[in-house]
Protein backbone atom coordinates (compact mmCIF):
# COMPACT_ATOMS: atom_id res chain seq x y z
CA UNK A 1 0.00 0.00 0.00
CA UNK A 2 1.15 3.52 -0.82
CA UNK A 3 0.53 6.83 0.87
CA UNK A 4 0.17 9.64 -1.68
CA UNK A 5 0.11 13.27 -0.71
CA UNK A 6 -0.59 15.74 -3.49
CA UNK A 7 -0.33 19.49 -3.01
CA UNK A 8 -2.31 21.10 -5.82
CA UNK A 9 -3.92 24.37 -6.87
CA UNK A 10 -7.26 24.82 -5.07
CA UNK A 11 -9.10 25.38 -8.34
CA UNK A 12 -7.86 22.02 -9.64
CA UNK A 13 -9.37 20.04 -6.79
CA UNK A 14 -12.56 19.20 -8.67
CA UNK A 15 -10.73 18.08 -11.81
CA UNK A 16 -8.43 15.84 -9.78
CA UNK A 17 -11.33 14.39 -7.81
CA UNK A 18 -13.19 13.58 -11.02
CA UNK A 19 -10.11 11.93 -12.48
CA UNK A 20 -9.62 9.85 -9.35
CA UNK A 21 -13.26 8.77 -9.37
CA UNK A 22 -13.01 7.88 -13.04
CA UNK A 23 -10.04 5.70 -12.10
CA UNK A 24 -12.10 3.97 -9.42
CA UNK A 25 -10.37 5.69 -6.51
CA UNK A 26 -12.94 7.11 -4.13
CA UNK A 27 -11.27 7.27 -0.71
CA UNK A 28 -9.50 10.52 -0.02
CA UNK A 29 -8.77 13.05 2.69
CA UNK A 30 -8.21 16.68 1.76
CA UNK A 31 -7.28 19.83 3.59
CA UNK A 32 -6.56 23.44 2.75
CA UNK A 33 -2.94 24.38 3.35
CA UNK A 34 -0.56 27.22 2.64
CA UNK A 35 2.64 26.45 0.83
CA UNK A 36 5.42 27.49 -1.45
CA UNK A 37 7.99 25.90 -3.70
CA UNK A 38 11.55 26.69 -4.59
CA UNK A 39 10.43 30.03 -6.01
CA UNK A 40 9.79 31.07 -2.38
CA UNK A 41 6.28 32.27 -3.13
CA UNK A 42 5.62 34.92 -5.72
CA UNK A 43 6.00 38.64 -6.04
CA UNK A 44 3.12 40.42 -7.77
CA UNK A 45 4.08 44.02 -8.35
CA UNK A 46 5.17 45.37 -5.00
CA UNK A 47 3.39 42.66 -3.04
CA UNK A 48 5.33 39.62 -1.89
CA UNK A 49 3.43 36.44 -1.05
CA UNK A 50 5.54 34.10 1.03
CA UNK A 51 2.98 31.32 0.76
CA UNK A 52 -0.03 30.63 -1.45
CA UNK A 53 -3.28 28.78 -0.88
CA UNK A 54 -3.07 25.14 -1.89
CA UNK A 55 -5.12 22.00 -1.37
CA UNK A 56 -3.48 18.87 0.02
CA UNK A 57 -4.99 15.54 -0.96
CA UNK A 58 -4.10 12.42 1.00
CA UNK A 59 -4.75 8.98 -0.50
CA UNK A 60 -3.89 5.45 0.51
CA UNK A 61 -3.89 3.18 -2.53
CA UNK A 62 -3.00 -0.39 -3.31
CA UNK A 63 0.16 -1.01 -5.31
CA UNK A 64 -1.93 -1.89 -8.35
CA UNK A 65 -3.68 1.48 -8.27
CA UNK A 66 -0.57 3.54 -7.71
CA UNK A 67 0.21 4.45 -11.32
CA UNK A 68 -3.34 5.43 -12.23
CA UNK A 69 -3.63 7.52 -9.07
CA UNK A 70 -0.52 9.49 -10.01
CA UNK A 71 -1.75 9.90 -13.60
CA UNK A 72 -5.16 11.09 -12.42
CA UNK A 73 -3.63 13.72 -10.14
CA UNK A 74 -1.07 14.93 -12.67
CA UNK A 75 -3.56 15.34 -15.50
CA UNK A 76 -6.16 16.98 -13.31
CA UNK A 77 -3.79 19.39 -11.56
CA UNK A 78 -1.76 20.42 -14.60
CA UNK A 79 -1.69 23.97 -15.99
CA UNK A 80 1.94 24.17 -17.09
CA UNK A 81 2.72 27.17 -14.90
CA UNK A 82 4.92 27.23 -11.80
CA UNK A 83 2.76 26.45 -8.78
CA UNK A 84 1.03 23.35 -10.15
CA UNK A 85 2.20 21.53 -7.02
CA UNK A 86 3.98 18.36 -6.00
CA UNK A 87 3.11 14.72 -5.39
CA UNK A 88 4.84 12.77 -2.64
CA UNK A 89 4.52 9.01 -2.25
CA UNK A 90 5.77 6.57 0.35
CA UNK A 91 5.23 3.00 1.46
CA UNK A 92 2.75 2.16 4.18
CA UNK A 93 3.59 -0.79 6.43
CA UNK A 94 0.24 -1.22 8.18
CA UNK A 95 -3.35 -0.09 7.71
CA UNK A 96 -6.43 -0.83 9.83
CA UNK A 97 -10.14 -0.18 9.41
CA UNK A 98 -11.41 1.23 12.69
CA UNK A 99 -14.98 -0.05 12.30
CA UNK A 100 -13.95 -3.68 11.89
CA UNK A 101 -10.62 -3.54 13.71
CA UNK A 102 -9.25 -5.56 10.81
CA UNK A 103 -5.89 -5.06 9.21
CA UNK A 104 -6.26 -4.07 5.59
CA UNK A 105 -4.76 -6.49 3.12
Amino acid sequence: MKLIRAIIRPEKEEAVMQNLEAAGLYAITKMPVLGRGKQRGIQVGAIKYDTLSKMMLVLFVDEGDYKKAIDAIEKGAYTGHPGDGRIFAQNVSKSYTIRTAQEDR
Partner: protein
Amino acid sequence: MKREGILHPKFSEKFARIDFEAEPLPVLTLYPAPSPIALDAVRLEVAGLEEHSRIIPWAALGDLPRVKTTPAIICQIFNWSETVAWEGVRLVDFLDYFKIDTHPDGYFAFYSRDKSFFEGLSRDEARDPRVLLAFGLNGEPLPEQHGGPLRLVVPFLQGYKSVKWIHAIRGFRNDPVGIKRLLGQSPTGIFNEKWRSQYQIVPPAGKVGDPPALTQPLPTSPLTKGEEVEPTPAQTVILPPVAATLSEKGVGKRSLKGVPSAVKLKEVIALIRPQKHIATRKGLEAVGIFSYTTQTVL
Protein backbone atom coordinates in the same frame (compact mmCIF):
# COMPACT_ATOMS: atom_id res chain seq x y z
CA MET B 1 -25.77 49.43 6.07
CA LYS B 2 -26.90 50.45 2.61
CA ARG B 3 -26.27 47.10 0.98
CA GLU B 4 -27.68 44.00 2.59
CA GLY B 5 -26.45 40.45 2.38
CA ILE B 6 -22.76 41.21 1.96
CA LEU B 7 -20.55 38.21 2.63
CA HIS B 8 -16.95 38.62 3.70
CA PRO B 9 -14.66 35.83 2.52
CA LYS B 10 -11.78 34.81 4.74
CA PHE B 11 -9.33 36.68 2.53
CA SER B 12 -11.20 39.99 2.74
CA GLU B 13 -8.51 41.29 5.08
CA LYS B 14 -6.10 41.12 2.14
CA PHE B 15 -7.96 43.90 0.33
CA ALA B 16 -6.40 47.34 0.30
CA ARG B 17 -9.82 49.01 0.34
CA ILE B 18 -13.38 47.83 0.96
CA ASP B 19 -16.19 50.39 0.93
CA PHE B 20 -19.76 49.14 0.64
CA GLU B 21 -21.20 52.61 1.18
CA ALA B 22 -19.66 53.99 -2.02
CA GLU B 23 -21.91 55.04 -4.90
CA PRO B 24 -22.97 53.98 -7.41
CA LEU B 25 -20.88 50.85 -6.81
CA PRO B 26 -19.04 49.45 -3.81
CA VAL B 27 -15.29 49.94 -3.95
CA LEU B 28 -13.23 46.77 -3.61
CA THR B 29 -9.55 46.93 -4.45
CA LEU B 30 -7.10 44.16 -3.75
CA TYR B 31 -4.13 46.49 -4.11
CA PRO B 32 -3.72 50.23 -3.49
CA ALA B 33 -5.18 52.33 -6.29
CA PRO B 34 -2.66 53.87 -8.69
CA SER B 35 -2.17 57.61 -8.93
CA PRO B 36 -5.03 59.24 -10.85
CA ILE B 37 -4.46 60.19 -14.49
CA ALA B 38 -6.66 61.88 -17.08
CA LEU B 39 -8.29 59.88 -19.87
CA ASP B 40 -6.14 61.73 -22.41
CA ALA B 41 -3.05 60.52 -20.55
CA VAL B 42 -3.96 56.84 -20.93
CA ARG B 43 -1.39 54.83 -22.87
CA LEU B 44 -2.35 51.23 -23.58
CA GLU B 45 0.52 48.79 -23.98
CA VAL B 46 -0.70 46.02 -26.27
CA ALA B 47 0.85 42.91 -27.76
CA GLY B 48 -0.78 40.16 -29.76
CA LEU B 49 0.62 36.67 -29.80
CA GLU B 50 2.90 37.22 -32.78
CA GLU B 51 3.50 40.94 -32.54
CA HIS B 52 5.89 43.27 -30.82
CA SER B 53 4.33 45.38 -28.13
CA ARG B 54 2.92 48.74 -29.06
CA ILE B 55 1.76 51.73 -27.08
CA ILE B 56 -1.61 53.13 -28.12
CA PRO B 57 -2.54 56.60 -26.85
CA TRP B 58 -6.16 57.14 -25.89
CA ALA B 59 -6.61 59.72 -28.65
CA ALA B 60 -6.09 56.94 -31.20
CA LEU B 61 -9.37 55.37 -30.13
CA GLY B 62 -11.34 58.32 -31.46
CA ASP B 63 -12.54 56.45 -34.54
CA LEU B 64 -14.11 53.59 -32.61
CA PRO B 65 -17.88 53.66 -32.08
CA ARG B 66 -19.04 54.63 -28.59
CA VAL B 67 -21.63 52.37 -27.00
CA LYS B 68 -23.83 52.63 -23.89
CA THR B 69 -25.01 49.57 -22.01
CA THR B 70 -26.66 48.86 -18.65
CA PRO B 71 -25.54 45.43 -17.52
CA ALA B 72 -25.33 44.50 -13.86
CA ILE B 73 -21.91 44.24 -12.33
CA ILE B 74 -21.93 41.29 -9.96
CA CYS B 75 -19.46 40.38 -7.25
CA GLN B 76 -20.25 36.78 -6.42
CA ILE B 77 -17.49 36.55 -3.82
CA PHE B 78 -18.90 39.37 -1.63
CA ASN B 79 -22.49 38.69 -2.76
CA TRP B 80 -23.64 42.00 -4.23
CA SER B 81 -24.76 43.36 -7.56
CA GLU B 82 -25.57 46.78 -8.99
CA THR B 83 -27.02 47.80 -12.33
CA VAL B 84 -25.34 50.88 -13.73
CA ALA B 85 -24.93 52.58 -17.11
CA TRP B 86 -21.57 52.12 -18.77
CA GLU B 87 -20.18 54.02 -21.72
CA GLY B 88 -17.17 52.90 -23.66
CA VAL B 89 -15.89 51.12 -26.73
CA ARG B 90 -16.32 47.46 -27.47
CA LEU B 91 -13.16 45.51 -26.76
CA VAL B 92 -13.65 43.51 -29.96
CA ASP B 93 -13.70 46.75 -31.96
CA PHE B 94 -10.50 47.83 -30.25
CA LEU B 95 -8.80 44.48 -30.93
CA ASP B 96 -9.84 44.46 -34.58
CA TYR B 97 -9.02 48.11 -35.20
CA PHE B 98 -5.48 47.70 -33.90
CA LYS B 99 -5.12 44.13 -35.22
CA ILE B 100 -4.37 42.60 -31.84
CA ASP B 101 -5.01 38.88 -31.79
CA THR B 102 -4.02 35.61 -30.27
CA HIS B 103 -4.35 31.95 -31.21
CA PRO B 104 -7.96 30.96 -32.04
CA ASP B 105 -7.89 28.85 -28.89
CA GLY B 106 -5.83 31.37 -26.95
CA TYR B 107 -6.25 34.05 -24.30
CA PHE B 108 -5.72 37.69 -23.50
CA ALA B 109 -4.42 39.05 -20.21
CA PHE B 110 -5.48 42.47 -18.93
CA TYR B 111 -3.22 44.40 -16.60
CA SER B 112 -4.11 47.10 -14.11
CA ARG B 113 -2.12 50.29 -13.74
CA ASP B 114 -1.63 49.33 -10.08
CA LYS B 115 1.09 47.01 -11.49
CA SER B 116 -0.26 44.06 -9.50
CA PHE B 117 -3.76 43.05 -10.53
CA PHE B 118 -4.30 41.19 -13.77
CA GLU B 119 -6.87 38.78 -15.15
CA GLY B 120 -7.27 36.70 -18.27
CA LEU B 121 -10.07 36.09 -20.74
CA SER B 122 -10.26 33.45 -23.41
CA ARG B 123 -10.24 34.84 -26.93
CA ASP B 124 -13.91 33.90 -27.23
CA GLU B 125 -14.76 35.81 -24.07
CA ALA B 126 -12.69 38.84 -25.00
CA ARG B 127 -14.31 39.11 -28.43
CA ASP B 128 -17.86 38.96 -27.09
CA PRO B 129 -19.51 42.28 -28.04
CA ARG B 130 -20.74 42.80 -24.47
CA VAL B 131 -17.19 43.35 -23.22
CA LEU B 132 -16.33 47.04 -22.98
CA LEU B 133 -13.36 49.27 -22.41
CA ALA B 134 -15.43 51.66 -20.31
CA PHE B 135 -14.70 55.33 -19.64
CA GLY B 136 -18.16 56.50 -18.52
CA LEU B 137 -20.37 55.55 -15.56
CA ASN B 138 -23.97 56.76 -15.19
CA GLY B 139 -23.41 59.58 -17.65
CA GLU B 140 -20.26 60.87 -15.98
CA PRO B 141 -16.57 60.23 -16.58
CA LEU B 142 -15.61 56.98 -14.89
CA PRO B 143 -14.44 57.89 -11.35
CA GLU B 144 -10.94 56.93 -10.34
CA GLN B 145 -12.16 54.79 -7.43
CA HIS B 146 -14.22 52.67 -9.82
CA GLY B 147 -11.33 52.08 -12.22
CA GLY B 148 -11.25 55.35 -14.12
CA PRO B 149 -10.33 56.67 -16.45
CA LEU B 150 -10.50 53.30 -18.26
CA ARG B 151 -11.55 49.86 -17.10
CA LEU B 152 -12.73 46.57 -18.47
CA VAL B 153 -16.41 45.57 -18.11
CA VAL B 154 -17.16 41.85 -18.57
CA PRO B 155 -20.84 41.47 -17.61
CA PHE B 156 -21.06 37.70 -18.04
CA LEU B 157 -18.22 36.89 -15.64
CA GLN B 158 -17.61 37.62 -11.98
CA GLY B 159 -16.81 41.23 -11.12
CA TYR B 160 -13.10 40.73 -10.58
CA LYS B 161 -12.69 39.95 -14.28
CA SER B 162 -13.64 43.58 -15.01
CA VAL B 163 -10.11 44.83 -14.45
CA LYS B 164 -9.85 48.43 -13.25
CA TRP B 165 -7.30 51.02 -14.41
CA ILE B 166 -6.51 49.13 -17.60
CA HIS B 167 -3.09 49.90 -19.00
CA ALA B 168 -1.96 46.80 -20.89
CA ILE B 169 -3.40 43.95 -22.95
CA ARG B 170 -1.38 40.98 -24.11
CA GLY B 171 -2.18 37.85 -26.11
CA PHE B 172 -1.27 34.39 -24.83
CA ARG B 173 -1.47 30.91 -26.31
CA ASN B 174 -2.22 29.34 -22.93
CA ASP B 175 -4.34 30.48 -20.01
CA PRO B 176 -2.37 33.24 -18.25
CA VAL B 177 -3.96 32.26 -14.89
CA GLY B 178 -5.29 35.49 -13.39
CA ILE B 179 -4.43 36.87 -9.99
CA LYS B 180 -7.56 35.62 -8.20
CA ARG B 181 -6.85 32.02 -9.12
CA LEU B 182 -3.16 32.51 -8.49
CA LEU B 183 -3.93 33.54 -4.92
CA GLY B 184 -6.54 30.84 -4.44
CA GLN B 185 -9.32 33.42 -3.93
CA SER B 186 -11.62 32.23 -6.71
CA PRO B 187 -11.51 28.95 -8.66
CA THR B 188 -13.34 30.33 -11.69
CA GLY B 189 -14.84 33.53 -13.02
CA ILE B 190 -18.08 31.80 -14.01
CA PHE B 191 -21.24 32.73 -12.08
CA ASN B 192 -23.06 30.17 -10.01
CA GLU B 193 -26.65 29.22 -10.83
CA LYS B 194 -28.13 31.83 -8.47
CA TRP B 195 -26.63 34.75 -10.35
CA ARG B 196 -27.04 33.20 -13.79
CA SER B 197 -30.77 32.76 -13.29
CA GLN B 198 -31.33 36.08 -11.49
CA TYR B 199 -29.78 38.12 -14.30
CA GLN B 200 -30.41 35.72 -17.19
CA ILE B 201 -26.71 35.65 -17.92
CA VAL B 202 -25.80 33.90 -21.14
CA PRO B 203 -22.12 33.08 -21.53
CA PRO B 204 -20.54 33.61 -24.93
CA ALA B 205 -20.16 30.73 -27.34
CA GLY B 206 -16.83 28.96 -27.45
CA LYS B 207 -14.27 28.67 -24.70
CA VAL B 208 -15.65 30.23 -21.55
CA GLY B 209 -14.35 30.37 -18.02
CA ASP B 210 -11.27 29.18 -16.30
CA PRO B 211 -10.13 26.57 -15.65
CA PRO B 212 -11.37 24.80 -18.82
CA ALA B 213 -14.73 23.09 -18.46
CA LEU B 214 -14.35 19.55 -17.30
CA THR B 215 -16.28 18.27 -20.28
CA GLN B 216 -13.35 19.27 -22.45
CA PRO B 217 -10.41 16.91 -22.94
CA LEU B 218 -7.85 17.28 -20.23
CA PRO B 219 -4.76 19.14 -21.41
CA THR B 220 -1.71 17.09 -22.11
CA SER B 221 1.48 18.16 -20.45
CA PRO B 222 3.78 19.93 -22.91
CA LEU B 223 6.61 18.43 -20.90
CA THR B 224 5.78 15.13 -22.54
CA LYS B 225 5.52 16.64 -26.03
CA GLY B 226 8.62 18.81 -26.05
CA GLU B 227 6.67 22.07 -26.39
CA GLU B 228 7.83 25.26 -24.76
CA VAL B 229 5.98 26.30 -21.65
CA GLU B 230 4.76 29.87 -21.69
CA PRO B 231 5.78 31.87 -18.62
CA THR B 232 3.13 33.17 -16.29
CA PRO B 233 2.67 36.89 -16.93
CA ALA B 234 2.90 39.77 -14.51
CA GLN B 235 4.48 37.86 -11.71
CA THR B 236 8.05 38.01 -10.65
CA VAL B 237 9.29 34.56 -9.87
CA ILE B 238 12.16 34.80 -7.49
CA LEU B 239 15.29 32.77 -8.14
CA PRO B 240 15.94 30.00 -8.87
CA PRO B 241 14.55 30.43 -12.38
CA VAL B 242 11.34 28.81 -13.51
CA ALA B 243 13.20 26.45 -15.81
CA ALA B 244 14.82 24.82 -12.84
CA THR B 245 11.48 23.93 -11.35
CA LEU B 246 10.04 22.63 -14.60
CA SER B 247 13.04 20.50 -15.45
CA GLU B 248 12.72 18.85 -12.07
CA LYS B 249 9.53 17.27 -13.34
CA GLY B 250 11.30 16.02 -16.45
CA VAL B 251 10.09 12.86 -18.07
CA GLY B 252 12.02 9.81 -17.07
CA LYS B 253 13.11 11.00 -13.67
CA ARG B 254 10.33 9.26 -11.85
CA SER B 255 9.66 5.60 -11.68
CA LEU B 256 6.03 4.76 -11.25
CA LYS B 257 6.82 1.29 -10.05
CA GLY B 258 7.50 2.60 -6.60
CA VAL B 259 9.06 5.42 -4.72
CA PRO B 260 11.78 6.70 -7.03
CA SER B 261 15.13 5.32 -6.12
CA ALA B 262 17.01 8.35 -7.41
CA VAL B 263 15.09 10.76 -5.21
CA LYS B 264 15.91 10.65 -1.54
CA LEU B 265 13.47 12.75 0.38
CA LYS B 266 12.87 12.97 4.08
CA GLU B 267 9.64 14.18 5.56
CA VAL B 268 10.04 16.66 8.40
CA ILE B 269 6.96 17.62 10.41
CA ALA B 270 7.50 20.49 12.82
CA LEU B 271 4.87 21.64 15.30
CA ILE B 272 5.82 25.18 16.24
CA ARG B 273 4.42 28.21 17.98
CA PRO B 274 2.48 30.38 15.48
CA GLN B 275 4.57 33.44 16.33
CA LYS B 276 7.73 31.50 15.40
CA HIS B 277 6.66 30.88 11.80
CA ILE B 278 8.74 33.64 10.26
CA ALA B 279 11.78 32.86 12.38
CA THR B 280 11.49 29.21 11.35
CA ARG B 281 11.19 30.16 7.69
CA LYS B 282 14.30 32.30 7.91
CA GLY B 283 16.14 29.47 9.58
CA LEU B 284 15.19 27.10 6.76
CA GLU B 285 16.16 29.61 4.10
CA ALA B 286 19.51 30.10 5.77
CA VAL B 287 20.30 26.44 5.10
CA GLY B 288 18.92 26.55 1.54
CA ILE B 289 15.47 25.05 2.12
CA PHE B 290 12.75 27.11 0.47
CA SER B 291 9.81 24.72 -0.06
CA TYR B 292 7.32 23.82 2.61
CA THR B 293 3.63 23.52 3.36
CA THR B 294 1.97 24.92 6.45
CA GLN B 295 -1.25 24.07 8.20
CA THR B 296 -2.84 25.39 11.35
CA VAL B 297 -3.41 22.64 13.91
CA LEU B 298 -4.79 22.38 17.43
